[in-house]
């Protein structure tokens, strides 16, 4: 069965997005097109869905295109990236290429040379079949190095991970030199082994390369594996931060998937911090949420109407739902065009997943 690749188009201009996605439907491989208007939503979506190609604008509010690309290079090194910008500044072009983008295209040029633009995109979508190590997803770098050494081959392995490039020199199955991030020898080799993913390329052997590594490759691999084990087990502050970041991204993805605008979790005053995603005015809304739940609860007791189940509200801009819980109250914001009927169930589901 033919694989339909997914393309994510990120631009803050909704009209441009519409036009752009319409043009992409003319690609011969008929990829699936998704569009987003903010960098945060794009990142959240990429966490949940595999994309083959990201087409990104540069000038955007809050998170600009370069910031998005920097994150993408780090988190999704396999993703092909294209910058489609109206900024005709060479500085931006070089900065984008420095971040490892596959293609930089001007919006004006795209309109002039549409066919060429589409051909380039099609080529990027199909490059997977051109060979190299990009396709070996289930093998770690250790496996690849061991395979090269066991087959007693002589080669130079060029490894790329986003903007980072490293090289390993293997001669007659022996690792003789390594170069990465400004380091050489065993230090460089250890750094390279920490890479979890990337792309690999075999270059011709360089038999005259200076030997900087004297230990056997198996000894080095063993040492590195032990070192990685030791660093992976203790919970360091950085990994806690990463976990928090991952959780935030996951929650953003949840919001995007459910098409909700924002969620605020407001614990009772002085009983913890407000947690919010998707809105700037966190404190005023959290205060209103608490107060609304409190006023409604008190009213329910006063008129003997039973416990408060929920509170809904709307104005021209959005629909709101307050879900009171024992320890905190939640406020979920929905766009005005979302059907009101299933809103309560959708909000409950969202909150249940949010808290899980």
């Amino acid at each position, binding site marked *: 069965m033919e694989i339909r690749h997914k393309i994510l188009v990120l631009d803050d201009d909704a009209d441009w997005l519409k036009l752009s996605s319409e043009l992409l439907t003319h690609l011969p491989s008929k990829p699936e097109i998704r569009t987003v208007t903010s960098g945060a939503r794009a990142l959240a979506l990429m966490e949940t869905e595999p994309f083959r190609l990201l087409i990104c604008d540069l000038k955007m509010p809050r998170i600009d295109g370069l910031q998005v690309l920097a994150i993408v290079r780090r988190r999704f090194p396999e993703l092909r990236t294209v910058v489609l910008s109206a900024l005709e500044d060479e500085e931006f072009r070089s900065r984008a290429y420095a971040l490892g983008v596959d293609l930089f295209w001007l919006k004006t040029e795209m309109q002039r040379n549409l066919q060429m633009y589409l051909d380039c995109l099609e080529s990027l979508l199909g490059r997977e079949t051109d060979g190299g190590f990009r396709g070996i997803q289930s093998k770690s770098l250790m496996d690849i190095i061991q395979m090269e050494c066991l087959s007693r081959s002589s080669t130079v392995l060029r490894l790329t991970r986003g903007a980072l490039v490293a090289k390993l020199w293997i001669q007659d199955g022996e690792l003789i030199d390594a170069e990465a991030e400004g380091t050489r020898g065993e230090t460089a080799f250890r750094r390279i082994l920490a890479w979890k993913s990337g792309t690999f390329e075999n270059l011709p052997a360089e038999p005259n390369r200076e030997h900087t590594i004297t230990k056997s490759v198996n000894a080095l691999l063993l040492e590195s594996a032990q070192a990685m084990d030791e660093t992976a087990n203790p919970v360091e502050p950085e990994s806690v931060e990463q976990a928090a970041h991952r959780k935030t991204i996951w929650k953003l993805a949840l919001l995007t998937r459910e098409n909700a605008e924002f969620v605020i979790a407001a614990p009772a005053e002085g009983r913890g911090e407000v947690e919010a995603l998707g809105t700037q005015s966190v404190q005023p809304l959290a205060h*209103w949420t608490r107060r609304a739940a409190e006023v409604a609860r*008190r009213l*329910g007791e006063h008129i*003997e109407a*039973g416990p408060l*189940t929920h509170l809904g*509200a709307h104005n021209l801009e959005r629909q709101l739902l307050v879900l009171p819980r024992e320890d905190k109250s939640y406020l979920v914001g929905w766009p005005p065009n979302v059907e009101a009927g299933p*809103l309560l169930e959708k909000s409950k589901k969202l909150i249940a997943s949010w808290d899980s």
Partner: protein
Amino acid sequence: MGFLKRLFRIRSRAAVQQLPSGSIAVDREGNVVTSTVSSTYSKDLLRAIGRDVLVLFREAREAQMPLAEVNIHFVSLCITARELRGGAVIFLFPQTALSPLPT
């Protein structure tokens, strides 16, 4: 006989408060201007409903989120309030097993 009277004296029963049904209009001060709720229902409680609904609208405005309508869902009563130039029109629907599911 006095002994028997003490045994069979009718104890004061707990009053079961009826839930209000109908609509009321409250001005910006929270005074009930018009009402279709049964006159047997406590005026004080109606005023309390009006006052609390206005609090919700006012505090939402203060949070830079003016609201057009608020629906408060209790297990046995649903209150729908529409903002009306600082005051509100409030609809009160007692909930029964046959009531439609809340949205």
